[in-house]
């Protein structure tokens, strides 16, 4: 194992998959000559050439659709959205074409495509550039959605996404590109199956269910809670769809309490689905109502203080945990 950044981990995943399969190509705005708006594709143009690392005009709907068409006839495109806030321009292709083709064609055309890019609120980008899109896409049958929080998960999940025979969205955490973590050496194949959660920290008093940018938040809060003698278990979903509900149930069966901390909106959000599944399966095991910490139900404001207030943060999560623990 060695320590690399989340950005490097994604870069390694791309390079390894491009190397392994000549049908894989990377396309998006500024992915080639600019090396990616977030430098995720640094060095790939030089290594794989302009045939496979392709800059596009600013036409998300156009190049997302181009990728789907290429996938229909056997290529395995990786389409980068500069941010998933811009994927909304391509919503028709991602939602109406990619996941529907297999059903509409009676099983003749599956779409092996990866859509990837940063997702979720970052720092003071304002309402248009701060969308957490996971609940929008996870509700669409035919799509798979994963949300890596660590360099290791980013590499393993992206590689698994590229090899999947269905449309997969890899929602990278915009705020975590420079974060570091331990990852297997490059000569060791690292694949993390879609739909497998991971307990990032064991605990016995309360389960904190989290994903993407809320994972480091939950881990930090768990360390603080330890000082107050509350032992929190951190369950990182890693994938939103398929959802590893069993991992969630296993944890809550042990702790009997749950707080869900999500980066998206509360109304019809990811946490709402998880709550439903917990109460349906573990009603008698719960010692307290499930609590959710999500975005406030408002467009994200630019002002730093207001933005902090609107997003999930340590204070809110701490208060939530204490509430379900009656502490």
């Amino acid at each position, binding site marked *: 194992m060695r320590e690399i950044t989340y950005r490097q981990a994604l870069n390694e995943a791309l390079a390894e998959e491009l190397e392994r399969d000549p049908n894989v*190509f990377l396309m998006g705005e500024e992915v080639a000559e600019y090396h990616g708006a977030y430098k995720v594709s640094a060095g790939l143009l030089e290594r794989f050439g302009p*045939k496979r690392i392709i800059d*596009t*005009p600013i*036409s998300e*709907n*156009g*190049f*997302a*659709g*181009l*990728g*789907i*068409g*290429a*996938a*229909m*006839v*056997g*290529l395995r*495109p990786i389409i980068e959205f500069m941010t998933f806030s811009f994927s909304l321009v391509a919503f*028709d*292709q991602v939602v*109406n*074409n990619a996941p529907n*083709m*297999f*059903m*509409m*064609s*009676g*099983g*003749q*055309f*599956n779409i092996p495509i990866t859509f990837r890019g940063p997702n979720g609120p970052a720092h003071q980008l304002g309402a248009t550039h701060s969308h957490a899109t996971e609940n929008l896409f996870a509700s669409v*049958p*035919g799509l*798979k959605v994963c949300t890596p929080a660590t360099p290791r998960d980013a590499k393993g999940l992206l590689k698994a996404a590229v090899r999947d*025979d*269905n449309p997969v969205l890899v929602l990278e955490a915009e705020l975590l590109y420079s974060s570091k973590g331990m990852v297997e050496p490059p000569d060791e194949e690292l694949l993390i199956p879609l*739909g497998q959660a991971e307990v990032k920290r064991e605990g016995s008093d309360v389960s904190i269910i989290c994903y993407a940018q809320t994972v480091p938040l939950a881990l930090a809060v768990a360390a603080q809670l330890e000082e107050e003698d509350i032992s929190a278990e951190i369950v990182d979903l890693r994938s939103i*769809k*398929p959802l590893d509900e069993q991992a969630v149930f296993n944890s809550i069966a042990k702790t009997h309490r749950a707080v869900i901390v999500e980066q998206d909106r509360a109304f019809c959000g990811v946490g709402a689905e998880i709550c439903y599944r917990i109460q349906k399966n573990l009603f008698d095991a719960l010692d307290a109502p499930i609590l959710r910490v999500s975005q406030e139900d408002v467009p994200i404001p630019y002002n730093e203080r207001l933005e902090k207030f609107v997003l999930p943060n340590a204070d809110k999560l701490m208060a939530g945990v204490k509430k379900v623990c009656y502490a």
Partner: protein
Amino acid sequence: MQRLEQRDEVEMLALMLLIRRFEERASQQYQAQKIGGFCHLYIGQEAVVTGAVAAVREDDYIITAYRDHAHALARGTSANACMAELFGKATGCSRGLGGSMHFFDRQNHMYGGHAIVGAHVPLAAGMAFASRYRGEDRVTLCFFGDGAINQGSFHEALNLIALYNLPVVLICENNLFAMGTSVKRSTSLKQIVDRAEGYDIPGEIVDGMNFREVRDKLTEIVGSIRKDPHPAFVEIRTYRYRGHSMSDPASYRTKEELEKYRLDDPITRLRAQLTREGKLTNEQFDQLDKKAKETVIASVKFAESSPELPVEKVYDYVYFNGAVEAGVSPAKRQESAADAAAATE
């Protein structure tokens, strides 16, 4: 220019007759409530797709919008598989899961059947991109209506197609109306072909009521693309005799206008050309028509007697090669309607 061996014109006339009789029978079956959803008929436009397929190879890619029955038939999908699809049966070309607007036939290189206006033009760009990527000399034919040319996806796709110099023939089937809105009321240009100019794509206007003109023009274009990949645009002027869909009485146009086009009927025209040249007798024509009618009547019987997919099978068509929720069997990709039929037996 190397000329492709042209498909026999009598055979192509038979195909036009099959399309017409198929659509007439579909209309009747729709009124008898055997067909659900929306149903858009191609009657009047037969020379467009027939002329186009006569100009390409069997392994060239074809993709179209929702008025797609004729494109599948022209590609070689059986009338049985097409009618069964309209009936929602498991023997349909999309196993009864796509319906009228979503005909697919992988084996015959028919890539749909797409019902969001303009949304398949980027797909065509991707298919042609793949041909170029692999160094193949395939050509992609992308059909769309006059209504599609004002969609954003159309414009984004045309720019990408021109920018990457992709081997696509963009075929605008201009039947003068996007649903009930005439081109005059929808499009700022005097002629649609000028859209291509804005993207530096060569464009031409073709008489879509004349099979030979469509075939010859496309043969020339496709031959040029095969030698040296590039995009092309054709505005093929045609006319649909029926309304936009089955529920449309087409009150936005006059009887006189419709009659004018009926007199220029593409089937009558090719028949007259062939008769004049001594290549077809009246008896032979009647035989062709009789055969088309019989094929279509048989397809209705086939569709009626075909099974539907069992309801629990619906979960098999969400994710390929592994289902998301436990307990659902992994789906296998079907290569063709024949596979689909076999799988239900």
